[in-house]
Each structure stands twice: as structure tokens, then as C-alpha cells.
């Protein structure tokens, strides 16, 4: 599975129970309660597994993970 917007949205919807029709790329995922911390772990695991990289401690932050656009921005720094 390649990591792109569609796969992230699909994962959020199918695996984490997010109503993706009600969110935009800028909608906060964690800070407004769409996801809990357990789901956040799931999300990070999925990004690492599918992206083939390991996030450093400094990268596991809301700045990189709290919205679809932030995740995509982070991925641009990690993926070739």
C-alpha cells in the first residue's frame, strides 16, 4: 500500500472509525477528540509500516500528526 492522502483517509475511516465525510485536511484529529491516544498509536504504526521508516522521538508530535495535511507534510520529509 503506498502512503498518500487516499490511503490515510481510508485508514482513518475503515480502521479508526473516523467519519471522513465530516472532516477536511485541516480538521484536528486528536485535539478535538476525533481520535484517542490508542488510535494515534495505530496511526503511527501504520505510517511506519507502510512508509518503511521509523519515527524519531522528536517526530512523534502533534505538529506532525494532528491533521491529514500535517501528516502529509511530515511524510514529504520522510518519503523519497
Amino acid at each position, binding site marked *: 500500500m503506498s502512503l498518500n492522502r487516499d490511503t490515510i483517509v*481510508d485508514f482513518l*475511516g*475503515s*480502521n*479508526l*472509525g473516523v*467519519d471522513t465525510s465530516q472532516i477536511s485536511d485541516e480538521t484536528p484529529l*486528536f*485535539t478535538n477528540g476525533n481520535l*484517542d*491516544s*490508542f*488510535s*494515534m*498509536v*495505530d496511526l*503511527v*504504526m*501504520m505510517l*511506519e509500516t507502510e512508509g518503511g521508516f521509523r*519515527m524519531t*522521538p522528536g517526530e*512523534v*508530535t*502533534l505538529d506532525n500528526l494532528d491533521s491529514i495535511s500535517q501528516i502529509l507534510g511530515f511524510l514529504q520529509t520522510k518519503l523519497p
Partner: protein
Amino acid sequence: MDKKRKGTIILGTPRSGSTLLRRLIDAHPNVCCPAETGVFTACGRFLRQHQIAENVPVGVLSGMAFAGVPETETLARLRELAFGLFTEVCDRQDAERWVSKTPHDIFYIDEIEQLCADHCNFIYLVRHGADVACSMVELNDKLGVHLPETHNYIRQHSAPLDAMAHLWIDATKRAERFARANSANTLRITYEELVESPRDTMSKVFDLLGQTTDGWSVDEALSGRENLGLGDWKTYQKDQIDAASVGRWKKLSDITQIRLAGILNPTLRMTEYEELPTRLAATDPEVRRRHEIGLLLQSSQAITT
């Protein structure tokens, strides 16, 4: 089983392989299995009754009974219509037997049993519930709409996979009861055996239909593109049977599998399917990484559990 009965109805939840099965059946020179006609689903909706005060049934059967037409007569008329339509299709294809395939039929299994149980044969097709749930979510995304029969489940369960898992449970419990009650004229097969041993499985199917496999082969069945219709969107993209989707649920995250286990495992156990894991593997490096990520998230000043 009464191999002289002309008609057979396939019962199986959506995404259980019924389109593949119909494709394999329809290739037989003496059998016709058209694409989804919706005939028996329509019959089911026609017959579905509701209860009002003091459990009085309200619907066509009770209404016509009040008008002096016995239930048996109303059912006979409806059955004659439904069977007649399939006989028409059969005659057009110069076939001896007809088989009906419409996945939505399973949502009206009680009504179909009332209408047809003693008058035709049945093929009950079952697939692992977690694979069905995954495939149903994919189907809803592809179609861009939710099937009407799924609406109640989607309203009740926020996670699409959970909703489809519950749908599979309800439909499968009904179908298993039906198969036991009608064992004399019901063949139960699994999707997994169909894709892993198609020829052997189809031999059992054709035996139910009173046919041999003479003049039929899996390869020829899958090379055909005739008689396409509703519901044929995915299976007809391939000319080989692909068993890769068996066990697709194992690609779900551990947490999702554990969550679905709580929902599906009792019914998976009842249907003799592999159950989902109920806890993470203790020695899995992934477990340690999950724990580490959890600690990192907690140490991040913005995250509190």
C-alpha cells in the same frame, strides 16, 4: 436433495463470492444463473410483515387473509410469478435449471423460506466474517452509497468495519438456522473452499443441480463475458480465481483485529472459522514499538490520555 427441482436460490451475504459462484454456474450448458435480478429480494419485501398492538401481523399475507384469500394461495401466486420469471430466462438460454443469485436475498431469508422452502433447492455460501466486513467497507466506498439494508448497522456503529461485522453476524445466524432447518435441500459451501478447490466445490454444486461437469470447466467459465448484468463489477475483471483475498482481515492493525474479535468471535466459532486474536502477541517486536510510541505520545506535552 431433490435434484429434480428446477430452481435453486443462492443465499450469502454481499461480498461472499456469490458473483464468482454465479459465473461458474452460468457457464454450465444446462443451467442458467443470470446476474442479480432482485426477484426474491422483491418477494421478501412484498411479504415482510410488521407487528401492531397485540402482535397482530400487518402485511400482504394477513391483509389478503382478512379479504378471504388464504396465505397459502397468496404465496402460491407470488411463487408462480417469481419462478415463472426465472423459467422465462431459462427458456431463453435453452437451459434446464435456473439459479437465482442476488446477495440481498439473505436479508429476507425468513420470507424466502416461507415462500420457497419446499419448492426449490438452496446453496448457502458463507465466508469469514472479518473478510466480509473488510470487503463490504470497500464496496460501500466504491459504490459511493450505503446499501439500504446496511443503514441501520451504520447508524448504530461508528466504525464501518464494526457495522459490517454486525451485519454479517445477523445474516449468518439466520442463514445457519435456515440451513439446519432445510438441510435436505440446502448445500452449504464456503467461499474459501470455492476459491481454493473450485472444481471439487463446483462438483457438489452441480450435483445439487442434477448435472454433471461434462461440458464445463473452470477455465472456460472464467473466460466467458456473456450474460453480464447487475453486481458483476469486480469478479468479471479477472479470468482466474484469486484466493489472495482469503484472510485479508489479517492485514488489519492488531488493535482493529482485537476490537473485531470481541464482535465476531462467537459467530466465527459457531461457523467453524478461525477466530480473531484477542490479545497482542507478547513477543512481537511490534508490541514493544507500540509501547514505545505510547510513551512518546504521553511524554509529548500536548497529549494526555
